[in-house]
């Protein structure tokens, strides 16, 4: 089961305050489907362009990225630069 870790503020708004979730999913798309089923509105919360870090690697457009059984997943604001 992958572990999803959320910032406190994000969790307060979308997961009833749960900052650490375990999810059975093999890719990012399935992970989001599972989280949406568990916390309706979760997927919409990412529409502002959230990036995701999977096992320390940051993805800006992660739709097809693989999720491992021991993966750690974080959501974070999208990062640009100058």
């Amino acid at each position, binding site marked *: 089961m992958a572990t999803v870790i959320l910032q406190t503020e994000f969790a307060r*708004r979308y997961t009833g305050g749960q900052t650490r979730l375990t999810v059975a999913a093999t890719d990012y798309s399935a992970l989001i489907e599972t989280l949406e089923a568990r916390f309706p509105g979760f997927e919409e919360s990412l529409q502002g362009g959230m990036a995701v*870090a999977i096992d320390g*690697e940051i993805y800006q457009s992660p739709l097809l990225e693989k999720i491992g059984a021991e993966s*750690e997943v974080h959501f974070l*604001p999208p*990062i640009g*630069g*100058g």
Partner: protein
Amino acid sequence: MGNEQDALNLVNEQVEYKWVGTRPIRPDGADKVTGRATFGADIDLPGMLTGVVIRSPHAHARIISIDTSAAAALPGVLGIVTGADLPELPNEIAAGGEAPINFRSVSENAIARRKALYDGHAVAAVAATSVEIAHEAAALIKVNYEVLPHVINVLDAMAEDAPVLHDDLITKGLEPAPTKASNIAGKVEFAMGDIEKGFAESDVIIERSYTTEAVHQGYIEPHAVVASVAADGMVNIWCSSQGQFMVREFCAKLLGMDIGRIRVTPAEIGGGFGGKTTVYLEPLAVVLAQKSGRPVRMVMTRGEVMRATGPTSGTHVHVKLGAKRDGTFVAGEMVLKYQAGAYPGSPAFLGGMTGFSCYELPNAKAVCWDVVSNRPKCAAYRAPGAPMASFGVESAIDELAQTLGMDPLELRLKNAAKEGTATIYGPKFLKIGYLETLLAAKAHPHWSAPLGPNQGRGIASGFWFNVGGPSSASVHVNEDGSVSVVTGNPDIGGSRASMAIMAAEVLGMDLSKVKPLIGDTGQIAYSFLTGGSRVTFATGMAVCDAAKDVVRQLRTRAAKMWKVTPEDVEWRDGSAFCTKVEEGKERAPLTLAAIAHGAARTGGPISGNVSINAAGAGPGFGTHICDVEVDPETGATRVIRYTAIQDVGRAIHPSYVEGQLQGGAVQGIGWALNEEYVYDANGRLQNTGFLDYRMPVASDLPMIDTVLVEVPNPGHPYGVRGVGEVPIVPPLAAVANAVSHAVGLRLTSLPISPPKLLAAIDGAKAAG
């Protein structure tokens, strides 16, 4: 000591390459030094008009009416645009230079609608047959304003009784959501561990507020554009920007056009540093060209650049740092208040994500406030948001070292982030090279060199994520065996040279036979803009993949010529070698030129075309050492020695990489010592030229020494990490720490200009 050992254990592959790591002459060099390079303002089309912008003289004013009739009647005036000519847009968020952007704000920033929100805000534009007529017409446009109270600074703008810029701006990130509009656009928090417990367990706590002023990117080339509309409505744009695809997308959105109806050709660019990751003149030029039926050129003056294009935020940053008596960091807290300018979207959240990221810090919190005020909308500037947060944190670390009686470099070594360190924004670092930069600093003769009277030495570190994202590349084999490498990113920092080097390395061919080119939006598939230190990494990866595809095709073609299978062909040193041994058959190696010459007979032209969405950008870390000498009579500070050290992954063209480190350091020194926006009581910008807005020039500074530390990024074929952002992060604190040691006072407000420093010295003397 543990950290030093960890650093030594890191694998630093020492692979020898033929081209990667060499310093060939830059492909754009001759054109630039002989004046042949074509910048935005150099584009000249038959029948071209000149467009000029009419700008608000008020910091905050309601636009009651705009009367263009007298200007329109002036002979030679062929087009006028006001806000009424652009569609009203809904709030729509897209990826921007430093943070997501709202197209509605971009549109209203390009040309004001109901209100002018800062001195210099565009309210109309006119195109005429000569620049003189255009200016005469501009003077005839009558704008009736109702002047409103204004607010410039971030803390003033957050006050309960501050004049409110947008009556529909409700602070995001607060619960419950406010019911009243304010200038506070949003609040974002990052946290890990237990901050209260951390401070309770700390033996020493340093707590201070730090301020920085808004500073401009200071690119030499002002914004410039030429727009032309064909008879079928197809729009062509030539301009200086950090992304031709960005200009195409933004103009399409702002003008309600299909993307396919706009073609954007990137001109040479005379600097951007993040400031050219949005549009200002481009949509206005297109509307003027549509209205007049003639090409229109618009070029900003330096004053317009300063008044109306995005600087980075002025900030107020409060830092609290707790540590054990042995120097182990226990807790850190930041409250960051950043000016966004007239529309939401400051990089406060990036300050919150980066400020503590050089260190192992088990308990941390950052609260980030995005605040609008009557200033030009901020734009990205190298490592957006990071230098200001880092100034606070790295100053606090310096003060902590003083308090503990520790060497500030050893204190950083003790707490340095490494592989596996958790960040405040969530993920743990993969392979990084921060420790290596500290060890290189410790070993550098600069760190132990003696200092003279009134001199001080400062050290500071900095971090930036670096990013990847969408990039495309085409590698075409020409009939004579030379190769063209086409990419979709304007070359700001030497990317053409890097692309050519990587392609030559993969193809095993002579670098002089590789020509790097930058395609317009009709010639190459989409690439995200040049920013975020992404091009050598992401577009470079696309080039490598395209070149590898070409090698695959070359092996296949050679196999056809030899009547063997591709598996029987090996590619090395730019030639095909047949590995199949058959009696009586001698197969001499086939050069790339020989295969290219016969390509028509073996399947047609040879070309590799790749589009990727690159991930795996390795984070970057740097450590800078700065020596200053202060004149106690005048408060003037002179940088007398400066060393910039950075983990660059692998330097494809070391001279360009060193240039990035030197440029970032110089811009950071200017930020620390001189640069600031000066507004009068009416909110009008007073220093709109380089004489009054004082950026460092070569004669102000010593040679900036550089040390390239190479801890290869496993996410790139040659180990590349982005290098352009990191070097502007450490200088603010490195300089301030040096000045603080030179004068024996902690300086917390930038710029440390002579009057400000003299006042601090005199104040300390008066206080005894």
